[in-house]
């Protein structure tokens, strides 16, 4: 049974139909990447899964159970952690405090959470030195590390990552994706990316969204292999990659 199954999901913002019947499945242990241009509906899909956007119709099943219509606080308690677009690190809290708050979806003592946050720095050694630094002073790459670390503190069974590479220097993007490939050992990941090359490099399965619809899905090499599609949606460097 898939860990996450989305059936014919429609999301409207007023007059605008952001998703027009999206169906995807994420098997346990997979990294699944959702590709597509700006405004294709990638972020809306993640927002619908985590409860920030209310589905107009269709269903979202997590572990076989419908979560469509539940609020974000309830959904993160079920084990879906959403690292949203723009990192959204709390600017007036320190890095450690931000990370600790990632555990707000489960019962644990403050000292236990503090120990877990310290352990999180083993996975993110680059931000260890900034433990007591306020969020607003960090660089984009550091913010992304904090946001992912905070997302992992929820001990999610499914991690939703929205554009982790956005606005980062190439060397930082590579560091972020190294972390994603480490995370996947324990956690299922649904990744949204504009950067098709990086997004598919860690994926078991990919989907391409276009104006609110899934137009293509398959294993990364199948996607790269489809030349017309690769040229249109994946940046046209299929042959170089292959």
């Amino acid at each position, binding site marked *: 049974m898939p860990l996450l199954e989305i059936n014919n999901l429609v999301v409207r913002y007023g007059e605008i139909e952001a998703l027009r019947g999206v169906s995807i499945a994420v098997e346990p242990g997979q990294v699944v990447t959702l590709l597509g241009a700006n405004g294709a509906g990638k972020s809306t899909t993640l927002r619908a899964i*985590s409860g*920030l956007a209310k589905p107009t119709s269709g269903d979202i099943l997590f572990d076989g159970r419908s979560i469509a219509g539940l*609020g*974000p*606080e309830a959904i*993160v*308690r079920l084990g879906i*952690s*959403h690292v*949203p677009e723009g990192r*959204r690190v*709390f*600017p*007036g*809290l320190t890095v450690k*405090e931000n990370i*600790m*708050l*990632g555990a*707000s*979806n*489960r019962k644990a003592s*403050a000292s236990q*959470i503090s120990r877990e946050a310290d352990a999180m720095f083993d996975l993110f050694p680059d931000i260890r030195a900034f433990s007591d630094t306020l969020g*607003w002073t960090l660089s984009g790459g550091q913010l992304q590390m904090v946001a992912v670390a*905070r997302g992992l503190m*929820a001990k999610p069974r499914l991690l939703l990552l929205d554009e982790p590479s956005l606005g980062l220097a190439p060397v930082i993007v590579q560091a972020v994706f190294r972390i994603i490939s480490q995370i996947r050992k324990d956690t299922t990941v649904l990744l949204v990316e504009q950067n098709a090359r990086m997004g598919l490099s860690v994926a078991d399965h990919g989907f391409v969204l276009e104006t609110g619809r899934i137009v293509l899905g398959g294993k990364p090499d199948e996607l790269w292999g489809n030349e017309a599609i690769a040229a249109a949606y994946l940046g046209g460097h299929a042959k170089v990659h292959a």
Partner: protein
Amino acid sequence: MDLILQLLFTGIGIGAVYALVALGFVLIFRATNVVNFAQGEFSMVAAYLMVVFAVDLGWPYWLSFLIALAGMALLGVIFNLGVYYPLRHRTYLPVIIATIGASILLANSVLAIYGPQPQVLQGWFETPGIQLGPVYLDSQYLLIIGVTILLVFFNFWFFEKTLLGKKLQATSQDKEMASLLGISVSTMIMITFIYSAVLGGLAGILVAPVLFVSIQMGSTIALKAFAATIIGGFGDVAGAIIGGLALGVIETFGAAYISVPYKDGFAFLVLVAFLIFRPQGIFGERVAEKA
């Protein structure tokens, strides 16, 4: 010199009351992005609750005090559910208007019950005060200053050292992100309203023996406290406390050396001066950086 020390003591005492109410303003503003114009009425209602229990019913002062504070916590819950919660997804304007409506409702409800004549509430202590060298320390002002110092420390500990305090801060900085982490945003805002109502109530109970207990006391204190938050830097906790104390001292000195009838005027003169020359307030830059 003796007079200056005496005025300083009195000014800090009354300033501490403004600081407590200003703190309530700031906490609600940070959690909901809305100025609660009924914050002063919290002080007034609490003072009248003391009149009900300690004066009319003749119950022990400490018991009346606890009941009044519990009543304020309950008022915070009702206020949140009745005034803020139904409008939480709207812009700030309907919420602000609702708080103005609530303040009118609270003031006139009390007026309907107690009438316009001011009530008198005794201070906590039997002893009126102590002479310390040249300065006479009024016992009620000592209590006000002592409680305010304790609350400032409590506030710091609560918001900076506890996980709940961090969750409240996170909620005030980014509600959507807080909810994604599993922080119950509506619970956090409920806690903020309860805490602010109790703070405002505490200020009202403490200042009641110094002033008269009247319908107008709420709006008078709230105006000063609001001025204090602007002087301190709107939205800044330390600014609210420093601004409140500064305002209390300024108006006390102004009354003593310039003119007693214009006592309230000095507070607003300082406010206008700040709005012209330093609109961001004393700690303004810090607020801007956090935003």
